[in-house]
């Protein structure tokens, strides 16, 4: 039968690898170009700085990707980061050991994710709405708690963590690896990862195949909340304060990184390496634009154009050209 005859089909696996390599090539190309165009880009200091800048968005983007793969969206992550800096700062200043402060912050993140899952699964709210509601109200709660003031963290060791390096690589970048590897194994080699894809592809088919769709949705938002709270801890360490208005707009950067990294907003398509590369491509563009003295307003425009170009070419290839 002609249509059934083996057609050269681009398999998903090949495609993912190919796309990842393309992104990597783009990143390397940017780095080479910037090294040639500026004297300061390739300096160890700047590279370390770039890695720090990109790391936090990268971790957010991983959590965001889990949610997007299920066909949802998490607009709250920026607000969760800001709120988490407050939680961490208050706990440390209250005299709790740092590890307890961190653990408590992470639990807050998971709790917020659980609330999102509840809103979506039990109340039937669209993900966009429930996370949008959290976005605005969480900033409000943070401002109420802090009375609108920043909380300075009185713990030098905690703050030093984000500035230090290990084996010549900034600690913050190690955190990306710490999150990235388990995330990769989880998404591509565990059945829960497979269930995320199946829910995003066809929730009804997944349910009829025995997948616990509700639990899978809960899990996606809890992981996103967890990643965001973790980034909140890192940010608190980096800036040394707790402030609920921090990380303004980071949710959009995380979504942009994820999409540049090949995640489909329609669900069921995505990876871990893609969003990581996407985040560092964005960080490189910002960093390079600063070094080249490009008006910072242009950075936003460039980011927008990049999103359109990458997603457009991705769509072209997906359609099999």
């Amino acid at each position: 039968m002609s249509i059934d005859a083996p057609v050269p089909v681009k398999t998903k696996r090949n495609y993912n690898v190919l796309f990842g390599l393309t992104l990597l090539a783009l990143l390397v190309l940017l780095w080479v170009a910037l090294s040639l165009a500026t004297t300061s880009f390739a300096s160890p200091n700047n590279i370390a700085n770039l890695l720090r800048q990109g790391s936090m968005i990268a971790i957010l983007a991983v959590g965001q990707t889990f949610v997007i793969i299920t066909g949802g969206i998490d607009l709250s992550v920026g607000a969760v980061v800001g709120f988490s800096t407050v939680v961490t700062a208050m706990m440390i200043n209250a005299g709790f050991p740092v590890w307890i402060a961190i653990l408590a912050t992470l639990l807050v993140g998971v709790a917020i994710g659980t609330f999102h899952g509840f809103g979506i699964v039990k109340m039937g709210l669209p993900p966009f709405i429930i996370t949008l509601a959290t976005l605005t109200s969480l900033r409000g709660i943070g401002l109420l708690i802090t009375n609108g003031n920043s909380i300075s963290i009185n713990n030098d060791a905690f703050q030093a963590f984000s500035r230090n390096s290990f084996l010549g690589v900034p600690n913050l970048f190690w955190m990306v690896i710490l999150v990235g590897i388990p995330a990769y194994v989880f998404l591509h080699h565990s059945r829960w990862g497979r269930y995320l894809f199946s829910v995003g592809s066809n929730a009804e088919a997944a349910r009829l195949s025995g997948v616990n769709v509700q639990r899978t949705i809960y899990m996606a938002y809890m992981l996103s909340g967890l990643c965001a709270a973790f980034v909140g801890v890192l940010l608190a360490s980096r800036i040394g304060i707790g402030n609920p208005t921090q990380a303004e707009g980071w949710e959009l950067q995380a979504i942009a990184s994820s999409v540049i990294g090949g995640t489909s907003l329609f669900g069921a398509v995505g990876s871990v390496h893609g969003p990581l590369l996407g985040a560092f491509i964005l960080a490189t563009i910002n960093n390079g634009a600063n070094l080249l003295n490009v008006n910072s307003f242009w950075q936003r425009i460039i980011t927008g154009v990049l999103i359109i170009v990458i997603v457009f070419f991705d769509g072209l290839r997906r359609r099999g050209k």
Partner: protein
Amino acid sequence: MNTASSDLHPEPDLAPGATILELRGLEKKYPGTHALKPINLDFKAGEIHAIVGENGAGKSTLIKLLTGVMPRTSGDVIWEGKPTGLSTPHEAMALGINAVHQEVVLCRHLTVAANIFLGEETVRFGILQQRAMVREAQKILDDLGFELPAHVLLGDLTIGQQQLVAAARATVRGTKFLIFDEPTAYLTRREADQLFTLIRRLKAQGVTIVYISHRMEEVFELADRVSVLRDGTYVGTRNIGETDDAELIRMMINRSIEQVYHKEKYEFGPVIVQARNLSGKGFEDVSMSVRSGEIVGLYGLIGAGRSEFVTTLYGRHAKSAGSILWDGKDVEIKSERDAMRLGMALAPESRRDQGLCLNLSVGTNLNLPIYKRISSNMLISGSQEKKHADQQISDLRIKTPTRHALASSLSGGNQQKIVIGKWLNHGARLFIFDEPTVGVDVGTKAEIYRLFGALLAQGAGIILISSYLPEVYELADTLHVFRRGRLVATHGFHTASHEDVLTQAIGV
């Protein structure tokens, strides 16, 4: 300003019997595939021309070429004596070529009237004349003899009714050439009759009808001529009076009709599942049981409560009364996972909506119910995953380059094999197949039926739901007839005639 009704009864430009459309060496190549080899075929004004062939025979390709959805690779199309490009859908519509597709491609969130006039709305001073359109649409529907309200949302209608709306929509567009692609796949007999009346009426008005169907009896009921495609090749055309289904099936495949419904008898074992006075949403007081080695057929019109009954059995919906016994013991089935744990498997009615994750790979789809079993400590065993998927692909003869290909890239018949195949590894003991062969060709049907036999031989029981009487009639050991949510009759194998079963289902 558009007044859609003026197009309802177009004057035929050609005398009936004159050639309206002629294909000369039309062909289509995809990279790696010769989907349609050069075909010469003519369509006469006012004829009903059936096209039959197995899935993948090139019918869909032919439709896409005729409706301008995609450009041809080479060949000429002669419309009313003049060569035409026919390279865009717009061009096809301008000529008067329209199609009614098997899967309804209309807007579920708009009203019936809005769908009928979509793209040709009645507008006055830039304002939509909604009430006028609803009135106009209602008149069209009434004229056609469809008992459908024009003001309701399309999504509130059954798939069969939506199909009728799609047909109505096609008739108001000055259509001279109308293609029906498997229109009755989801229709009840009554809806199908309404559609046939419409088709005959259009024919009388001089409209050329191209009718694509897997159902031989419809072809013989409707068509004037029938053309056969096989493997992208045009096999031949026959006048309907000069052929029979045996010849057509021979032309389509090289297999005889007895080989399709191939049924072996198996020893019945103990009762696997029993429903006692079960009631739920859409059905009432249904009692039945399924034994090991038995196929229990559920026949009835769409909406008779068969699907609701099995989805309740499967834990999708809560029962309101009655009890379910599994291996003789009372069980509470609260979710699909409860049902699966007991050993049930459900291959649902609509592969696109319920059965498949289309943008995931064939392998993932096949393994979805068993990931728990093939992973240890959360991690999936890659070798197990490969083994199970490849085994199903070869056992079921799923035509796919590798298990990594996306499910969406497969033909309908092969997709259906995935929906069924994913349960074979699961080791269930009760299989529920809801309309397993809708839109599937004869060859694939035979393969699916052979699968049933393999399941029975392992001691499983099967519930088979079908709206296609010959299927349940030839396969079921016990045949239950549903009407309006109730089980109205039960027959053994071939103990009642087709007519009796049909009469009980319709309730005349």
